[in-house]
């Protein structure tokens, strides 16, 4: 029999039972406190954009985990070789891709804030980078810390005096109560129905499997594997669509990333300022004034947008500016919306070529073409050019003058429309909580193992192990599964009792 499982599957939400808890935050909180052997990580500087940001990793595996995505600039100066209190320069790597250049401070237990092995990563301060590094750490085996958890560990490891205990208790109580309320509100609001359905499917598949095990002697018809596969596939589908909705949900919560891209000096920063209605980005007529990405958020039509101004795309010998340009390209890759800015006065074929190039770099983003400096042409000429570009590139096109605030309103409503966020109504189920997302991914892995187990003809008792894992993770989102409920389903639907 093939042993189809990975140890890593049971590392994160490990000390949790599937049958007790119904809401994630306090739930995970609880198990963390129980399990200080976990390594946790979080953005320590609040998650907003800034010049630099600090991520903190704490726990027995802090150094090992960070080392998996860190390449020191001096090869021998690995984190593992570092004494406590050292700072190391190097790069955060996602495989072979350089994510950022960072400074890492190494703290050795017990001489750290938490009393555990701790790493602090000082990275560049864009929200994207912070998230990206955080995701890498999670991928390498760290678990997302809960609000106050570093303090909690510090307390539990005797780094704080006992008189602070009550303060900590208040903090935790408040945060879990608040998240409880929010989550309950969400549950009642839009998607309770869909979650109930998912919950019921889980109970059903579990009951059908348990029926084969506990009631194999009974005169009842056992579900054939096709039916079980059907249910498992439906569960997987739901779990997948939920975890995919995280991207949308996250965008709604943190702002939909909009990248402003285009040639240098085409007026990207002016456009950003026009949208922000303030002098945010440094503006000048000198090419390459914006040397790094600048970002800010703005709410349009009730939707949060995160605008990212970028260094212009051009070939340059200025090393610093070139780094900025490279970053622009990578930014384009993760944007939801790319604003391709070009000067309307340029020859049409040049405009088309430049916009096309930006489109090519913007993997999954919806591209909006912006023809700037419309004040320099007559209205008729502007209109004619807009129509041609629209036709040739099959993109929404809007002509503006960032400098004179022409066409900004039109652009704003276009952004709202393109974001698709307005379509996310009350009845759409959107996962916006990273812990829910993690749980969904793990539930998805478990249900995948259930499906492969069913396909391989493994007996119900072993499939049930993965079902339990799946319930355990889904329990955080859909409410817990109790044995009582599963037996109840069996007794209600099958004539048991010979």
């Amino acid at each position: 029999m093939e042993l189809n499982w990975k140890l890593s599957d049971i590392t994160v939400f490990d000390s949790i039972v599937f049958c007790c808890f119904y809401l994630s935050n306090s739930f995970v909180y609880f198990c963390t406190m129980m399990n200080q052997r976990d390594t946790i990580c979080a953005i320590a500087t609040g998650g907003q954009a800034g010049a630099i940001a600090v991520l903190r990793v704490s726990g027995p595996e802090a150094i090992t985990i960070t080392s998996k995505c860190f390449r020191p600039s001096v090869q021998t100066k690995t984190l593992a070789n570092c004494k406590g209190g050292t700072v190391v320069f190097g790069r955060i790597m996602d495989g072979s891709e350089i994510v950022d250049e960072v400074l890492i401070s190494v703290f050795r237990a017990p001489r750290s804030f938490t009393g555990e092995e701790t790493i602090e990563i000082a990275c560049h301060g864009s929200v994207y980078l912070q998230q990206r590094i955080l995701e890498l750490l999670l991928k390498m085996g760290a678990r997302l810390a809960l609000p106050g958890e570093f303090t909690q560990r510090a307390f539990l490891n005797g780094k704080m005096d006992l008189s602070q205990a009550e303060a900590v208790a208040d903090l935790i109580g408040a945060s879990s109560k608040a998240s409880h309320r929010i989550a309950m509100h969400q549950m009642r609001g839009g998607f309770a129905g869909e979650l109930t359905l998912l919950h019921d499917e889980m109970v059903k598949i579990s009951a059908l499997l348990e029926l084969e095990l506990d009631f194999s002697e009974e005169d009842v018809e056992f579900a054939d594997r096709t039916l079980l596969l059907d249910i498992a596939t439906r569960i997987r589908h739901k779990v997948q669509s939920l975890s995919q909705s995280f991207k949308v949900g996250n965008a709604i919560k943190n702002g939909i990333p909009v990248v402003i891209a285009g040639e240098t000096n085409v007026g990207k920063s002016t456009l950003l300022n026009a949208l922000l209605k303030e002098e945010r980005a440094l503006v000048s007529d000198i090419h390459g004034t914006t040397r790094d990405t600048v970002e800010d958020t703005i709410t349009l039509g009730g939707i949060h947008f995160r605008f990212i101004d970028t260094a212009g795309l051009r070939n340059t010998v200025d090393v610093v500016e070139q780094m900025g340009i490279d970053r622009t390209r990578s930014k384009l890759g993760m944007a939801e919306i790319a604003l391709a800015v070009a000067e309307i006065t340029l020859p049409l074929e040049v405009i088309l070529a430049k916009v096309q190039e930006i489109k090519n770099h913007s993997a999954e983003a919806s591209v909006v073409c912006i023809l700037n400096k419309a004040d320099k042409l007559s209205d008729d000429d502007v209109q004619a050019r807009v129509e041609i570009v629209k036709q040739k590139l099959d993109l929404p096109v809007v002509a503006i003058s960032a400098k004179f605030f022409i066409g900004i309103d039109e652009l704003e409503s276009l952004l709202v429309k393109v974001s698709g966020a307005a379509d996310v109504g009350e009845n759409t189920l959107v996962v916006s909580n990273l812990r829910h997302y993690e749980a969904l991914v793990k539930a998805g892995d478990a249900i995948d193992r259930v499906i492969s187990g069913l396909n391989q003809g493994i007996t119900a008792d072993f499939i049930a192990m993965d079902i339990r894992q799946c319930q355990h993770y889904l329990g955080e989102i859909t409410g817990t599964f109790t044995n009582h409920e599963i037996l109840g389903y069996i007794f209600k639907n099958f004539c048991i009792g010979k």
Partner: protein
Amino acid sequence: MELFSKYDVIVIGGGHAGCEAATASANLGSKTLLITMDMNKIAQMSCNPAMGGIAKGQIVREIDALGGNAGIVTDASAIQFKMLNRSKGPAMWSPRSQSDRVEFIKQWRKVIDNTPNLDLWQDTVNSLIIKNRVICGVKTALGIEIFSKTVILTNGTFLNGLMHIGTVSFSGGRISEPASLGVSDQLKAYGFTTSRMKTGTPVRIDGRSVDFKSLIEQPGDEDFHKFSYLESSKRILEQRSCYMAYTNEVVHNILEWGFKDSPMYNGTIQSLGPRYCPSIETKIVTFADKVSHQLFLEPESLDNNEYYLNGFSSSLPWNIQYEALRNISGFENVKIYRPGYAIEYDYFDPTQLINTLETKLVSNLFFAGQINGTTGYEEAGGQGLIAGINAHLKAHSMSSFTLNRDEAYIGVLIDDLITKGVDEPYRMFTSRAEYRILLRQDNADTRLTKRGYDLGLVNNVRFELLNFKAHRIEYLTNYLRNTSILPDKCNNLLLAKGTTEISQKVKLSDILSRPQISLIDILELDSSFAELVYSDNRVLDEILESIEIDIKYGGYIERERIVADKMMRLEDLKIKGRFVYADILSLSTEARQKLTAINPDTIGQARRISGVSPSDINVLLVLLGR
């Protein structure tokens, strides 16, 4: 010399819980008295004449592994044996036997009468002697006061028992046996909450009147399996078959005529019965579209003609039961010894107990078996054993003995009872055990015998056997894991078994882990392994079974172990006595009440209480500060 000196332990009730409790405490060295209404009905199988079954068979093996007697008695009285769920993984394999009911009683009586320190007294206990909320002894119907340090109540269905057959209701603990009155009311006065449960039993049939040719014969297994790990415990009796019969629509119609006189449906019986063991009338009502229900005719004894009709439990008027029966194929000329009946009885909310089964309200008083809202001989026996052990330990001021949820079904059973309470008669299912892959019938000795030995309940013979087995298993398993086989030595067999060939040498254990290959095949492939194996035939079948399970399912077992170990850390956080829950205002009101009532031992147990939320647990953890 007085007849009744002061005892360490008095056990009230000689059923499956009482017998196990009395022999355990006596074997541990406590001076023990077993009081029963009828010493000729010791360990009576009041319902079906079978021991074990899915999840229940594992419990019997656990009782045996700990040094209890249920396994030995079952082996000695078995007239059919089956390993259920053989097509599933090894954790699902569940031994079940049909026992000769008369022989079962005889064997238990033999055990009791040969247990040192154990006295037997036939009488009824009418009241308990309690001083300052500490039990001191009992007072019997004969007016005798007998004193002891601890008392174990194992009343079964006898507390205010009330039976129903049609419109006829009568008081009693079992058919033709008086109920036990007085104790319930006395305990209520001490603050115990009691409630009523209902169970039923089917008609008993005269085998001479059955046309067995019209029924489907169900023979048992013929292999080495049995309940006791002891080599000396053997299945010796002649084996008998069970038979299957089916109800039909005519039968259902006749039964429906009786509904107006059914205590279940005319409101006489208000209490809850088990959903997994419904009466035939409930089955007809709940699953109205089912035109036929399966019945099993089970032999009761080699020495009489009595058969038990499993699946036909009923409290309908006797003549309706009889008429309906006669319309079942094979029962056209049936004669019955007695009709089925329903019985209502008092049980005590088991959340009033701690994990040793001692009551929270009266010190040194223990409850075990059906009094705690459970059903089944196995569940009763398991509780009896734990209560007997702990009554002994308490009487000698020694620290308690409990089993964890990842250690034994008995641990799951008791934790469920005291933490969650019951709302219908509690029966064990494998799905109640979250680590069931670990709780197998093959490894109950590995799990528990050492613990029983440390306690003093397991004797040297049993312990020496465990060590012998363990060494042999380790030695032979190492051989399989470290010895390779060449392709030309095994490819023929692999092909013949329908599995793929190998192209280079492979470890024997890897060959064995293929689903198509059994250990018998390995014995054929490697003669030096066979030589090692057959060099000692002692408990060889069991040893080979364990090796095969270890190698084939080791991955799953290890995975379950990891999950269990992580969860069990919660059980290390003791909280009992550390909080006055009512004063912790940051707990929810429900949590304050539940935590106060149940007073959990550990954070792990607190978490399993319904109504205690994760945030409540957080509050406790922070307050613990560790």
